[in-house]
């Protein structure tokens, strides 16, 4: 027991503890209550009065407020701290640079091995072959139920490829100078990317008139990736802020601790790479192959840099054992993912996520032109589009109670090659597996995304839709779905029946970000309750408080109340019989 408590107090890695101990020092500078000694009691009481309450007590949220004059703390990126080089002093970065690849050449001049390393990672390859299912996954191939497919639309979608110029199949994945170092490492906030091909005039107008980028200034600013760097793509997946994930939004660029206890600027101020630890430009953490139950915990010092699980920092007994309830909570780790209790709602922080998308209504025009409508005001006051001619209707939601289910970490995707019953009511874009009986599974929270999207009605397959392009088949600008699918499929030599329809699809997004402070975590009673249990739909378990045997409860109730009735009758007879045994 003692060892456990000890371990719980040591659960932060050393690089994160350094910051925590700085906080402690700040706290220790606060005035202390004088120790009461009998002879000087009066003096002490007077001095207590002299200390203002606000200096003694933490602020209303219970978190010590840092002094206003303190400079903003740097984001905590992981083990690498206290850099050995100042990039602003490098002659190689003085510029001027005419293009991004020129900057990359300068980077690779010193970072000689980085190009090779980088080309192995998923940000470059957009390709992932699942080691267990053997499925060919990755953005390069997959179909989702947002904008449907990047394939064939790279001119637009590969804005989020960490490279320069991928617009079609001719892109050279072996050219190191095409790596975009800046999108992840620049810190000026002035760097941006535009589509790699022009696209339809109806769309390209959106990207005109942007200020030129001072590449030399941007290059000199490089640092370990900040939340805003990762967020420039990951916060905007699916075509807009928080559209896709639900737990990754621009609210995380400068989040309060209450939104995310790790990333909070008034808390630990973690960058993404504090958890998504990076080794040779390969990041820990995968959405295709999730570690749903970490049984190794923190490991020995220097180990566990290849996982982004909660347990890799917090250990396998994460709750300090200071009560019976905490003892039980540590037991729950076997069945329940940390995220299930500690992320009580998704799409928090004022940025909504899309939960429903209807491609059937796309393509409406006014005077031959596409248009869009705003119809949702999200928590931070911003208006969101609820209809776009190029995409159809959207439904937004925020502060959403997740769906819960047993999850073994394995996603099985419906890919372009998957054949399904063309008359199926709905199909899962990424069904997930897991059960109570499977020892790798735990109960996880998910965002559920529902979409009506085009499919091949004749063959029962999903389709690649040609959305982006300068040609007349590109859906965005021409609004002809039949032509867009025809070309989208033909470009990759795929068999298409020629008849498309719309089918309901579901995708599941395991929720793992926006971890709330512990005081906002779910309580026992949120799941252990007869009605409205968070886990009402979770199968394969007997959940005390939620579950009961109705027969037993009825029999037991009859027994108890039958006994009471018998007692009343017995007492009644005693009372009314002339010689009864009452007193």
């Amino acid at each position, binding site marked *: 027991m003692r060892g456990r408590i000890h371990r719980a107090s040591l659960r932060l890695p050393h690089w994160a503890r350094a910051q925590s101990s700085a906080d402690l020092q700040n706290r220790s500078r606060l005035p202390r209550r004088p120790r009461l000694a009998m002879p000087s009691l009066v003096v002490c009481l007077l001095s207590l009065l002299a200390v203002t309450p606000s200096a003694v007590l933490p602020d209303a949220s219970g978190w010590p407020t840092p002094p206003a004059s303190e400079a903003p703390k740097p984001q905590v990126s992981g083990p690498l701290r206290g850099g050995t080089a100042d990039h602003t002093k490098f002659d190689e970065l003085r510029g001027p640079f005419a293009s991004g690849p020129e900057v990359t050449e300068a980077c690779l001049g010193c970072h000689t091995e980085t190009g090779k390393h980088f080309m192995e990672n998923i940000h470059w390859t957009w390709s992932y072959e699942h080691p267990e299912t053997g499925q060919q996954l990755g953005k390069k191939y997959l179909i989702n139920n947002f904008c449907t497919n990047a394939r064939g639309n790279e001119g637009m979608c590969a804005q989020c490829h960490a490279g320069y110029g991928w617009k079609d199949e001719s892109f050279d994945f072996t050219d190191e100078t095409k790596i975009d170092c800046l999108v992840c490492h620049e810190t000026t906030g002035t760097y941006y990317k535009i589509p790699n091909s022009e696209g339809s005039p109806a769309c390209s107008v959106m990207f005109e008139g942007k200020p030129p980028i001072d590449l030399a200034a941007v290059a000199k600013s490089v640092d370990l990736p900040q939340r805003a760097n990762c967020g420039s793509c990951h916060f905007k997946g699916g075509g807009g802020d928080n559209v896709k994930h639900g737990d990754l939004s621009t609210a995380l660029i400068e989040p309060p601790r209450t939104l995310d206890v790790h990333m909070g600027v008034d808390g630990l101020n973690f960058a993404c790479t504090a958890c998504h630890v990076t080794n040779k430009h390969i990041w820990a953490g995968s959405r295709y192959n999730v570690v749903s139950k970490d049984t190794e915990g923190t490991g020995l010092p220097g180990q566990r840099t290849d996982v982004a699980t909660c347990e890799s920092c917090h250990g396998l007994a994460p709750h300090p054992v200071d009560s019976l309830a905490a003892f039980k909570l540590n037991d729950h780790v076997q069945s329940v993912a940390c995220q299930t209790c500690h992320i009580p709602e998704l799409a928090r922080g004022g940025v909504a996520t899309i939960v429903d998308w209807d491609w059937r209504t796309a393509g409406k025009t006014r005077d031959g032109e596409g248009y869009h409508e705003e119809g949702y005001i999200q928590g931070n006051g911003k208006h969101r589009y609820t209809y776009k001619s190029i995409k159809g209707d959207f439904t937004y939601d925020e502060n959403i109670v997740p769906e819960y289910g047993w999850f073994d970490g394995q996603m099985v995707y419906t890919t372009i090659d998957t054949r399904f019953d063309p008359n199926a009511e709905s199909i899962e874009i990424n069904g997930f597996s897991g059960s109570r009986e499977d020892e790798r599974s735990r109960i996880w929270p998910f965002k559920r995304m529902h979409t009506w999207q085009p499919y091949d009605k004749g063959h029962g397959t999903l389709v690649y839709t040609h959305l982006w392009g300068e040609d007349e088949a590109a859906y965005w600008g021409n609004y002809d779905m039949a032509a867009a699918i025809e070309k989208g499929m033909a470009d990759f030599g795929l068999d298409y029946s020629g008849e498309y329809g719309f089918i309901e699809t579901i995708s599941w997004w395991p929720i793992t970000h926006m971890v709330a402070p512990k005081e906002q975590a779910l309580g026992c009673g949120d799941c252990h309750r007869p009605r409205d249990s968070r886990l009402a739909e979770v199968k394969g378990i007997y959940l005390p408080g939620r579950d009961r*045997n109705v027969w037993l409860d009825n029999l037991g109730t009859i027994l108890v109340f039958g006994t009471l009735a018998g007692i009343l009758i017995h007492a009644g007879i005693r009372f009314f019989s002339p010689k009864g045994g009452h007193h």
Partner: protein
Amino acid sequence: MALHRVKIFSLFERFWHWSQMLLIVVLLITGFGLHGFHDLLSFEQAVTLHTGAALALLVIWAFGTFWLFTTRNWRHFIPTASGMWNVLRYYSFGIFKGERHPYRKAYWRKHNPLQALAYTMLKLVLFPAIWISGLAYLFYFAWRDIPDAAAWLEGVALIHTAAAFAILTFIFIHVYMLTTGHSFRDHVMPMVTGFDEVDLTPEEEAYLRKDEPEQIR
């Protein structure tokens, strides 16, 4: 044979009885709360109280069982048919006619045959059922990886809940019985003071008077 006021419940036995009573009331209230029958406490509070009370009760039971055997008091609970019929007859008919309770406490038989049977069943069936199932319930996560653990847990929960209903029923009857025969107060006071009227043989009386005078008044 003559009636005397004799100490039949030792201090430990009285402590055992009343602490057990208190803990069982806490367990019943929190337990049925956990089961979803009421919302008087949060689930966390109820679990904490329920577990704490259960562990305390187990400790008391361990001491109680040890005491029963080392003091030979367990013999009070040996079931017997002798006199059972009269007691049953009394509760079914005699009590309404104002008859006197047929049973006289003896020095080595402080419970009437019905009582002895009821307490024996409580000690040998209901209590073990609830604490064995309760411990299995509490330490579910130690055996959750055996095959069909969830189904076993449901069985454990079923036994635990059924035993709880039965114990609640026992308590109602137990308390009601205090109103029969003598007054309610006459029935409760022996468990407070330790003394009750007992039919002593002359030899028992002589022994007590000489060797254990503090046990007899």
